[in-house]
């Protein structure tokens, strides 16, 4: 019979191979799903993975993949630090919203003044908004031992209500005929987060995401803090004996991931989204959790995983339009990716053995 046997050390080969395998399995299972829906599975999978990159209009889709990927990467890099240390920030969506609100509010406060200093101030405020929102679960955990998973998640819903309230209230566009939503930050030169190179999709959020990937990589491989983060996750007892202060680590990990999520929100509201509105958040904070795990909690892996999710998002949109696939099937397709990854992870820690049943 087949048995799973625990490996003495996790397999490095499988750790690398499972994401690729998960993508292939997702293509197969997704293809089957599309076939059941009465569509040509090969064409559907090709539309999702190939068309955005190499079709006639790829010049536009490529930039859109990047636009989708930046916030995912920025948030996921922050989350991965905490996840490695066993600190679970599930509320990045809320921190993303609060960063957008605080950063956007700073920009709107200056309206219609022009000045080079406005955008940097907004960036600072964006990071601060996310940081402060993440400090709530962090302080509650360190002072009262509450569960940061629940607190950070519930704060998402609080943030959504604050977003709705400011969209109808203090940040509402005075020239918006009473309709909800702030002024369009894209139309206000001092706060507009435009493409650094026109038409590429590389805006300031992209620069920040790439920088975050490099810094996180440096941190994890070269810095004592990175070592402590890894140690706390892999051997919590050893970490404590080694002088790691767990409370400090909680504050740092939640703080960093909150600040990065806040930045992602700020770059999104000043760039692709343009304005604060009740429907500003579309789930980047949650999808980033998939990205973090798909990227093996490694900065480079996250970069690739973010791009892959961006690709399926853009490709999924094309498939909906051209092939008439329902949007729920695209979401299911993306969900399969995480499902297969987690399922394949078994092989990192276990090996499959064929053992003959012994007669009793």
């Amino acid at each position, binding site marked *: 019979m087949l048995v799973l046997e625990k490996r003495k050390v996790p397999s490095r080969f499988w750790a690398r191979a499972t994401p690729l395998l998960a993508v292939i399995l997702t293509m197969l299972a997704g293809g089957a799903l599309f076939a059941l829906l009465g569509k040509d599975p090969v064409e559907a999978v090709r539309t999702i993975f190939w068309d955005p990159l190499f079709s006639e*209009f790829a010049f536009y889709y490529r930039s859109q993949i990047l636009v989708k990927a930046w916030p995912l990467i920025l948030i996921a890099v922050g989350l991965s630090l905490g996840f490695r240390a066993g600190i679970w920030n599930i509320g990045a969506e809320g921190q993303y919203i609060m960063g957008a609100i605080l950063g956007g509010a700073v920009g709107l406060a200056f309206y219609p003044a022009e000045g080079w200093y406005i955008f940097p101030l907004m960036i600072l405020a964006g990071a601060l908004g996310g940081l402060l929102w993440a400090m709530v679960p962090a302080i509650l955990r360190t002072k009262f031992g509450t569960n940061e998973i629940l607190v950070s998640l519930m704060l998402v819903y609080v943030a959504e209500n604050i977003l709705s309230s400011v969209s109808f209230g203090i940040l509402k566009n005075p020239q918006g005929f009473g309709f909800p939503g702030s002024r369009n930050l894209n139309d206000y030169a001092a706060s507009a987060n435009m493409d650094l190179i026109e038409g590429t999709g590389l805006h300031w959020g992209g620069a920040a995401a790439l920088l975050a990937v490099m810094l996180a990589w440096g941190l994890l491989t070269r810095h004592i803090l990175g070592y402590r983060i890894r140690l706390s996750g892999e051997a919590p007892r050893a970490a404590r004996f080694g002088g790691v202060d767990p409370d400090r680590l909680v504050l740092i990990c939640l703080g960093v991931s909150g600040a990065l999520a806040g930045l992602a929100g700020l770059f999104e509201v000043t760039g692709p989204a343009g304005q604060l509105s009740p429907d500003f958040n579309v789930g980047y904070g949650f999808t980033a959790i998939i990205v973090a795990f798909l990227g093996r909690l490694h900065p480079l892996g996250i970069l690739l995983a973010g791009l892959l999710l961006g690709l399926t998002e853009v490709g999924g949109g094309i498939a909906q339009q051209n092939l008439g696939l329902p949007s729920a099937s695209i979401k299911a397709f993306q969900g399969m990716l995480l499902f297969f990854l987690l399922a394949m992870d078994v092989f990192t820690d276990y090996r499959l053995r064929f053992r003959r049943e012994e007669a009793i």
Partner: protein
Amino acid sequence: MKRRTFLASAALALGIAGAGAALAEEKMKAGFVYVGPVGDFGWTYQHDQGRQAVKAEYGDKVETTFVENVPEGADAERVMTQMALGGADIIFATSFGYMDAVQKVAKKFPNVKFEHATGYKRADNVATYSARFYEGRAVIGTIAGRMTKTNKIGYIASFPIPEVIRGINAAYIHAKKVNPDVEFKIVWVYTWFDPAKEADAATALIEQGVDIIMQHTDSPAAMTIAEEKGIMAFGQASDMSQFGPNAQLTAIIDNWAPYYVERVGAVMDGSWKSQDTWHGFKEGMVQLAPYSSKVPSEVQAEADAMKQAIIEGSYHPFTGPLNKQDGTPWLKEGEVADDGTLAGMNFYVEGIEGEIPQ
């Protein structure tokens, strides 16, 4: 984009050259962007019915595509660009929140026509359209005023925007007119489509003693709750009687089909122009579902009479004397509200309790 303009001008040149046969094979393409799922049995469902009507009307001459569940903001911009790149000749953006995205994409594709539902920003290639749902609200307000036993009517409101406030006012004015003891309980859910939230709101309203529910959200969740609890309700956007065979008194139906057929036709024959359309009962954009047998025949007759008067133009749902909530006069005896005021309505009329959330 260069390639597209090239293709478009090439097609034009062919047309001038009289190569009609070549053009006839080139199907006209219409794209639809939906904020909810086509299966919401409310707002988006009705827009998709309109799309299917276009297909039925023009058959092989037109190809329709749609993308559902498109969030407002950057994603809407991407989806519309994708449609325009894919060769769409006209794009229907069916949610208010798509407004800025429509403007941006329309600038990039001057040869593509855009139709934006319930918006107010227009351009040479962007038209706006909406329906005078408040006419339907006036009629169901009358029915509700006559039918309520507890004199408490529940209202599930989405967002405090003029469109929704107008509906509340229209329903309240007419319920009050036939039943001076009537009271409105209003719950704001801050969403267009969230069945769980809508159902919670309905339950909360029933606990406050309402026996009739009206809604300005997109799903039939409240109707389902009303059916369960044995109270009455009005369907919204679509005939929801399958979800509340006993509960539904009637429904306000959004009928986009004639407009969509007309506008797609206008693109085909080249007569399309940017305009602002605001149609009601008269043009058939707003309709009522058949009355339930629970509505007494004299109430049915009263409702029909009001509908007829609105169609003929002899009655306007916002006719004075009417005061604002704070008691300041708004419309004098016999005065009728102008469209500008209605379009930007941000106040309750006198008698409604509570405040509009700010």
